[in-house]
C-alpha cells in the first residue's frame, strides 16, 4: 500500500473538497481510471460521471459534470464545473439536470457535443432511481 495522497475537488466558485485519499476512481473521457498514491503524472479531461473517493474509512461518491483531472505522484486535483455529492443529490436536482442535459443533446451540433450530452443523460438516468 503506497499510502495516501492529497485529493482536491475544485469548482469555479470554490474549493469543494480537500482530503487525504487512499484511492480515487476518476471518470476520464478515455475511460475510468483509478488513482493511487505515486500515480504517473497525467492530465485527463473528464466525462460526466461519478468520482469514487476512498479515504480512511470514508467513501464518497461525487457526480461531476465535465472538467479535467491533474494527477501527479502526491496529488490529484479535479477541476469540475459542477459537482454534487451523490448521497445528497435530490431527485428534483437530478430531474432538472436531466432536463437541461436532454435539451443540450437535442441542440448538440457536432458528434463530440452529442457524445458528451449523451453520456451525461445516461449517467443521470442511472443516478435517478437511487436518489428517488
Amino acid at each position, binding site marked *: 500500500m503506497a499510502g495516501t495522497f492529497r485529493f482536491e475537488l475544485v469548482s469555479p466558485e470554490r474549493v469543494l473538497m480537500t482530503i487525504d485519499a487512499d484511492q480515487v476512481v476518476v471518470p476520464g*473521457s478515455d475511460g475510468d481510471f483509478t488513482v493511487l498514491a505515486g500515480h504517473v503524472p497525467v492530465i*485527463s*479531461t473528464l466525462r460526466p460521471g461519478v468520482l469514487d473517493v476512498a479515504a480512511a474509512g470514508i467513501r464518497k461518491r461525487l457526480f461531476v459534470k465535465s472538467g*479535467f483531472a491533474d494527477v*501527479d505522484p502526491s496529488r490529484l486535483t479535479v*477541476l469540475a*464545473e459542477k459537482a454534487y455529492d451523490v448521497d445528497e443529490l435530490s431527485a428534483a436536482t437530478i430531474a432538472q439536470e436531466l432536463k437541461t442535459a436532454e435539451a443540450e443533446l437535442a441542440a448538440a451540433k457536432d458528434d463530440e457535443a452529442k457524445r458528451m450530452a449523451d453520456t451525461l443523460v445516461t449517467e443521470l438516468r442511472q443516478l435517478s432511481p437511487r436518489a428517488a
Partner: protein
Amino acid sequence: MASLKDMRNRIASVKATRKITKAMQMVAAAKLRRAQEAATAARPYAERMAAVLGSLASKVTDKAGASPLLVGNGKDQVHLLIVMTSERGLCGGFNSNIAKLARSDANRLIAAGKTVKIMAVGRKGAENLRRDLGRNIVERKDFQGVRQLTFAHAEGVASRVLEMFEAGEFDVATLYFSEFKSVIAQKPTALQLIPATVSGTQAESKSDGALYEYEPSEEEVLGFLLSRNISTQIFRGLLENSASFYGAQMTAMDNATRNAGDMINKLTIKYNRQRQANITKELIEIISGAEAL
C-alpha cells in the same frame, strides 16, 4: 430669504438622505465582504487552470496548426470589446472609469481603421457608451436581479463570445473590467481574451521535470482548456467587478454621508442665526414701541 420653516424642512430632508446613504454604505460593506470571499474562493480554480494551460501552451510549436483561440485567426481587423460594468449606480466613478478606458481604446482602434464591436455586460456600461458608440454595441447582457453570480452566468457570456468567434464575427476579443486592488482602489483593466494571453512564468514553474501524459491527447486537452479558459476569465472578471463595485459604492456612500453631515451642520448654524436674528428684531420692535409711548 428662506423662511424658518423652509430651513427646518431642508434640514430634515438632508438628515433623511444621510440615513439612506449611511444604510447603503453598510449594506455595501457587507456585500463587499461576500463578494471578496467569492473572488478569493474562485482563485484556486483559475490558478490551476492557468498553470496547466501555461505548461501546455508553451509546448505548442506548430503555430499554424494550433487552435485559433490560442494564436488568433491571423487577422486583426474586427475587435470585440467586452465591457463589464455594474447594474446599478451610486458608486462614484466606477462605471465611468471602465467606460472611459473602453472608450479611449475603441476610439484608438477606430482611428486606426479597425472595426469595433462592443458587448456590454451590465446595464450601466451600455447606457454610458450608448451616447457616442451606440452603433458599435452589438450585444447586451444584463444581470439584473441576480443575487449571487455563478459560473453559469459567466458561461452564458462565454458561449455567446465563442459562438461569435466561430462565426467569424470578430478577430480579437478584449475584456474590460475593474480589478479589485483594495476597498478604496479599483483599477479599470483590459485583458485580451482571444487570442489567449498565456504567461510564460507559470509555464516554467509547472515544468519542473514532471512529464505529463495527456488523455485523450495534448491537442484535445488544450482545446478543451482554451474554451473553458474563456468562461473562467469572464467569471473572474465578473467577480472582480462585483467586489470593485461594492468597494466603490462603499467609498461613494461614505463620502455622501460625510457631506450630508457637513451640510446639516452648516444649515443648523444658519437656521439658529436666523432664528436669533428674528428674536432680536422682534425685541427691538417691542422695545422701540414701548419707548414711543
